[in-house]
């Protein structure tokens, strides 16, 4: 799952990582403009003939905050109110770009979480790769 958005690392965070980030962000005065609420995001896909259709709905949680006039948005697959709020806060903070030191720390935490997730994906990929077929041609074929 490639993303340029550093806050995407919140998606796969475990409880410890999330608590850590929440504590960091808690030092700022965020205004929660939309408390986390669950709802449905209709998933649209493009079929192999280039036609878009709706595959079905995905349970998601969204939240919105404001920090220093900057709106932050958080949307996460699943019933994840804390993650949605943390992601919205990180989004607002990183776009506001200050306090600089806090931004650096938040980026660092997000980076570490991302690294752990990438390593997990690599482990899954290695297991999948072990099931790749190597065909042997039969004699006389």
């Amino acid at each position, binding site marked *: 799952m490639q993303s340029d958005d550093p806050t995407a690392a919140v998606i796969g965070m475990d409880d410890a990582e999330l608590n850590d980030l929440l504590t960091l962000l808690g030092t700022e005065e965020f205004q929660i403009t939309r408390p986390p609420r669950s709802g449905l995001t209709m998933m649209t896909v*493009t079929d*192999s003939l280039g036609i878009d259709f709706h*595959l*079905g*709905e*995905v349970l998601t949680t969204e939240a919105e905050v404001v920090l220093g006039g900057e709106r932050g948005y958080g949307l996460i*697959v699943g019933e994840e109110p804390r993650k949605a709020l943390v992601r919205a806060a990180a989004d607002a903070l990183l776009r506001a770009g200050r306090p600089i030191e806090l931004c650096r720390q938040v980026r660092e935490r997000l980076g570490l979480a991302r690294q752990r997730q990438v390593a997990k994906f690599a482990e899954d990929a290695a297991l999948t790769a072990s099931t790749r077929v190597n065909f042997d041609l039969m004699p006389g074929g």
Partner: protein
Amino acid sequence: MGYVAVKGGIEAIENACSLFAWERSKGSSEPLDVAQIREQLYLAVDRVMGEGSLYAPDLAALALKQAAGDSFEASFMLRAYRATQPRLGYSLPVNTEEMRIVRRISSAFKDIPGGQVLGATSDYTLRLLDFELLKDDAARREAFREKVFSNLSAEAEIPDTFPKVIDILRREGLLADSLPSGIAGEPFDITRQSLTFPAPRSAALQSLARGETGGLLTLAYSSMRGYGNIHPTLGELRVGYVPLRVAHPVTGEPYIAGEVKVTEAEVLARFEGTDGIPRFSLGYGLCFGQNELKAISMAVLDRCTRTAKPTCPAEDQEYVLYHTDGIEAMGFCNHWKLPHYVDFLSDLDRLRKAQKIARQEECNANE
């Protein structure tokens, strides 16, 4: 006999509901945890999400527990739950080429770019009961984990994404890609608009994607056995994760909210183009979770229902779409259990009268 309208039975109904909940909890075994169902019965969870048309693994697992394992009831609960939730929005269209693959095979070509990757599958098991599982404990699991990871080879790598097998055919001009004009544009949403026939492609695919696995399989199997003229080859089957992406409300940039597990099938069938040149045509299937029978059946039925002159039920779009929704089918079947005392009394009356008339006529003829 008079009119037999009835009311009452509330107490009996309430007790019957309690008795159902008691029936699944009265045994001596430990209560099932929702996480156990989600992790260890994940294919059942996937099926319920697909048929309930709601991707929510925890809720699907809860529904299975509450329904004592009945997949129809569990899917129904998910459909009912979605009706209580606000629609936050639509995702940006995702292209399945960017799927993070966990399984991918082709029955059309031996050598495909990226290779045949079997992934986690029961396809090659002998379907013999594994009595070892009766002793499933932590030690056994740890030993199994070690065995699985010791088989890993350092060189074995898979690419982040795989090219589509059908692109090989497309490049050689062997695939009929053109669809009748006027079907592109905003996708139809069957949760907001009623189906009309002929249904636009987007509506048909949305209906099939939430179809009931057994229903889709039955109709697709009828076609495979020869009730119809489609002879499909499985071009590609993939299982993996695709991102759920929306437009960020502030920046407008694509924004990933998480991953969704899906199964995709593409079948190929011979087709005579309008220009008289024979080509392959494509049938497409995609559904939530890992449900390969469903994705393949959907792809076969997508292709069948695009036949110019339907000759059998599986090729009739209205027949297929109206009879494969599990929730509607179970609802109608279940409604026969509700009191039909008045209807049946009327049937009885008419039958008695008809018998009387028939006997009278027999008597008259004999005189």
